[in-house]
């Protein structure tokens, strides 16, 4: 375009003016950008750096290996098993449905599980491993590994899970573990972040629950760099956790197995205690259940059948169960009376089969009466009238004090679930709990271990041990934690005169070994291993006047759940006691018939450290004993998980 020089000049001036203006505008904007950049990168950099780190680094917890539980001889009671599971990564699998179908030819997976896996996979990012099968057998894992080329995205993984090799034997002692529930978390004020790990298991009952913090250990952490999708890029750091402490219990796994087998078919509890150290060698509860089922997730039908079983397999009877101690309480009354001096050794009471107090008749179990009864005879033949009389004289407060001294009404700090306190009644208790005054009849009933008195088999074992040695020994269940021996709880000699104890022990000796002793059928004849004991039969119902008039019906004629509880406490050897045993057979009938034979077998098993020779039994019983020994031998030869399978149905 042709243009005059004047126009050219004009144009150039205009462009220069506006060009400079526009250029200035541009530089100003660049300055604004600079300011913004400075503000973000210099002034606010700390904030943004923090945000960036949060973006980038994730912490993962490494679950610690749970502490092991052994018995006193180092046999494993609770261990950790390698648990193989199969996981599937969607992005590697291509078509997950197809891969799963191939996998099903090797490992059995039901349709429901397949649907769950497929839907879970859709919800999650494609690189997140989803568990397809849990607790897969090693053979199957091997086969999966061999077929890996046709199973893209499938990987076997290994983790640790709790295993109880002794199955039902220790269900009520060691308990079991299970996944953390919301309820568990709500109970804790400051829950360990470890508990949030999926599939993490904590103790739910027994030692597993009570010593949870000891067994759990502390978690390790893994610091990983993740990308925007949460995929792990690399490990930045790793700090291994502290495995849980190992625990050694005082129990003897073989003796426990024997106790459980011996009580098979009954609803019963038995406790074996070392009279010197208080070590609990066996804490049996029958029937039992397999805690491994709970670890793996028990099926609804299995759980219901455990709940509905009238023999209550889920109840830990030795420590949770409380029973009227019946005649096994008579030692307490006797010792209280002797210590108070209300009755002498040679002093006798006349038994006519009943005693009338305030127009109310208190019956002796022997309707014909025992005639003249002294202290030793009263124990030997378990005369009720004698104790009515003595209890009246000594008074409930002294009896209660003696009971407490012998370990009744005491929880005995043990790491077991729901340890019962039992009940040692006295005037104050009745006033507070029942709002009524103590009446003389209450004392009479308490004197023979009926009425309000309640004790657990564990407490009865402690009582027996204390009587046998005169030492205030307390039960101990944990022998050592991580090799550190736990203290023996023995407060030394109790403030009970040796003479009183000697008389009561004599009575207990005669219960088993003398003519007319109530436990005479359960004698031990081996020299130096004589047993002393006391039978007990506790009523679970009141015998009405009408019934008594008709003639009290025999236990065998009553429905099972209305029959009496059978009890027996004993120790051996009588001369230098080593073990005390208590046995309660629920609704078993008479203590001498139902409980004493079991207690004797257990005691002999403990004393001999295995199966006792037949010579320890009276010659007339050896035939039946031998056949029972065979039966139990056969039972124990089976793997722990299969021992009681058919025994469950009969309940």
């Amino acid at each position, binding site marked *: *375009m*042709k*243009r005059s020089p004047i*126009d*050219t000049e*004009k*144009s*150039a001036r*205009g*462009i*220069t003016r*506006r*060009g*400079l203006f*526009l*250029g200035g505008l*541009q*530089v100003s*904007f*660049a300055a604004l*950008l*600079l300011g*913004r*950049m*400075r503000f*973000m*990168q*210099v002034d*606010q*950099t700390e*904030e*943004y*750096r923090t*945000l*960036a780190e949060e*973006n*980038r680094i994730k912490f993962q917890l490494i679950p610690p290996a749970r502490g092991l539980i052994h018995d006193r001889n180092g046999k494993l009671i609770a261990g950790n098993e390698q648990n193989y599971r199969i996981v599937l990564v969607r992005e590697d699998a291509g078509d997950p449905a197809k891969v799963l179908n191939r996998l099903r030819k090797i490992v059995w997976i039901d349709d429901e599980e397949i649907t769950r896996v497929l839907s879970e996979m859709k919800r999650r990012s494609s690189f997140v491993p989803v568990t397809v099968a849990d607790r897969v057998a090693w053979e199957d894992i091997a086969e999966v590994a061999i077929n890996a080329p046709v199973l893209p995205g499938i990987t076997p993984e290994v983790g640790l899970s709790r295993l109880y090799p002794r199955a039902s034997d220790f269900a009520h002692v060691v308990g079991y573990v299970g996944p953390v529930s919301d309820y568990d978390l709500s109970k804790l004020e400051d829950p360990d972040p470890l508990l949030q790990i999926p599939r993490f298991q904590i103790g739910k009952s027994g030692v597993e629950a009570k010593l949870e913090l000891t067994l759990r250990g502390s978690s390790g952490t893994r610091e990983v*760099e*993740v*990308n*925007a*999708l949460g995929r792990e*890029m690399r490990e930045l750091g790793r700090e291994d956790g502290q495995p849980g402490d190992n625990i050694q219990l005082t129990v003897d796994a073989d003796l426990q197995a024997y106790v459980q087998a011996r009580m098979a078919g009954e609803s019963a509890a038995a406790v074996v205690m070392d009279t010197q150290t208080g070590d609990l060698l066996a804490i049996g509860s029958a029937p039992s259940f397999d805690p491994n089922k709970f670890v793996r997730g028990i099926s609804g039908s299995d759980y219901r059948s455990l709940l509905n079983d009238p023999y209550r397999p889920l109840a830990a009877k030795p420590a949770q169960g409380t029973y009227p101690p019946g005649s096994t309480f008579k030692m307490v009354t006797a010792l209280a009376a002797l210590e108070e001096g209300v009755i002498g050794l040679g002093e006798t009471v006349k038994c006519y089969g009943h005693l009338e107090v305030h127009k109310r008749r208190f019956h002796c179990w022997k309707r014909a009466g025992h005639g003249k009864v002294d202290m030793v005879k009263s124990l030997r033949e378990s005369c009720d009238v004698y104790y009515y009389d003595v209890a009246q004289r000594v008074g409930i407060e002294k009896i209660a004090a003696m009971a407490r001294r012998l370990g009744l009404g005491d929880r005995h700090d043990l790491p077991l679930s729901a340890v019962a306190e039992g009940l040692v009644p006295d005037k104050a208790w009745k006033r507070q709990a029942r709002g009524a005054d103590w009446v003389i009849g209450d004392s009479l009933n308490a004197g023979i271990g009926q009425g309000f008195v309640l004790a657990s088999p564990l407490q009865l074992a402690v009582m027996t041990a204390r009587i046998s040695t005169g030492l205030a020994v307390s039960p101990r269940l944990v022998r050592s934690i991580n090799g550190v021996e736990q203290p023996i709880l023995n407060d030394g000699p109790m403030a009970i005169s040796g003479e009183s104890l000697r008389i009561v022990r004599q009575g207990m000796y005669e219960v088993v070994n003398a003519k007319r002793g109530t436990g005479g059928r359960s004698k031990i004849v081996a020299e130096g291993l004589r047993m002393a004991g006391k039978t007990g039969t506790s009523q679970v119902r009141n015998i009405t006047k009408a019934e008594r008039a008709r003639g009290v019906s025999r236990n065998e004629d009553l429905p099972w759940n209305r029959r009496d509880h059978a009890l027996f406490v004993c120790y051996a050897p009588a001369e230098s006691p080593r073990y005390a045993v208590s046995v309660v057979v629920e609704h078993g009938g008479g203590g001498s018939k139902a409980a004493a034979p079991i207690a004797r077998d257990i005691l002999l098993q403990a004393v001999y450290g295995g199966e006792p020779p037949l010579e320890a039994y009276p010659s007339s019983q050896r035939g039946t004993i031998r056949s029972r020994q065979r039966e139990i031998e056969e039972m124990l030869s089976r793997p722990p998980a299969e021992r009681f399978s058919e025994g469950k149905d009969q309940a």
Partner: protein
Amino acid sequence: MSYLEYNVKYVPAGLRKVLYINWFLVLLLTAVACMGFLMLYSVAGGSMEPWAAAQMKRFALGMALMFTIAMVPIWFWRNMAGLGYILSLGLLVLVEFIGTSGMGAQRWIDLGFMRLQPSELSKITLVMILAAYYDWLDIKKVSRPFWVLLPIILILLPTALVLQQPDLGTSILLLAGGGAIMFLAGVSLWYFGVVLAGGVGLVTSVFMSRGTDWQLLKDYQFRRIDTFLDPSSDPLGAGYHITQSKIALGSGGWTGRGFMQGTQSRLNFLPEKQTDFIFTTLAEELGFLGGVSLLALYVLILAFCVAAALQNKDRFSSLLILGIAATFFLFFAVNMSMVMGLAPVVGVPLPLVSYGGSAMLVLLVGFGLVQSAHVHRARQKR
């Protein structure tokens, strides 16, 4: 100015032209491109593939184009302005039919060796046609309504076609770039006042149109505006880009985390880390100093362009240089505002740094024109 007048003064000819190329500008452009190569190498995790090597080849091609264009006399390019404009309009129409779509927009034509984005090309051709128009137009007529309407139509034609694709970023660049040339050419400031008022009215009506039948923008464009106004409202959804971009940028600090040490881009927290958001990687790894360096290079390029334009007495040349400089400015200003959270996310690359063929080639073609105008400027005889 006539052809004859050039002879009176001195216009370099032949190989001597090479001496009159603005070599400092070439150096600046290369420096910026090298920063780009470094960042592309870094975001690929320390690898030339897949981006850095390809970008280098394009830069080499672009440089060759730039020198070729610089050697051709500027009046030839002025004569080609109309043809170029029509060609780019044609391509914009063509892309509607045979274009390949990406990110919900039809944008490029696959030429086999590269993907051509006609919208990028139109940025240059629009500048050329407007410069040629005002060179041709009598200065006295510049502010007359009819002669103002004509360039507006020239601007709106490609803008409408680009908006149709839809590519909001390029439309804004075209509008603003065209407006800048009209401003430089001396159009009365009243018009700009009216357009500004109209713009405010348009923005209002765009917002008012939301959710009605006559909605003026696509939903995703509305969402971009929403997330710009409040990125935290949807931190994992649409606001994710802005939030992550600010985190990366802000965490750079004074000196950055070090080359190849940026965590956010490497771990894919950053969206489109090799293209529109590459500045965040640069700012994270090289810090404030790195960011300032790049900004300084850009400003220097602008300064050289303005200086070159003011020295040049040829109306077409001046307008062309300033127009291209304005377009270049708009590129980096919009991109940087976007990643710093000052503007909504619109698809505008960082000039000469972002990975992408069309933008790189078009910019270097533009600077080729700048060089050509510079080389063929009438100089006083020494």
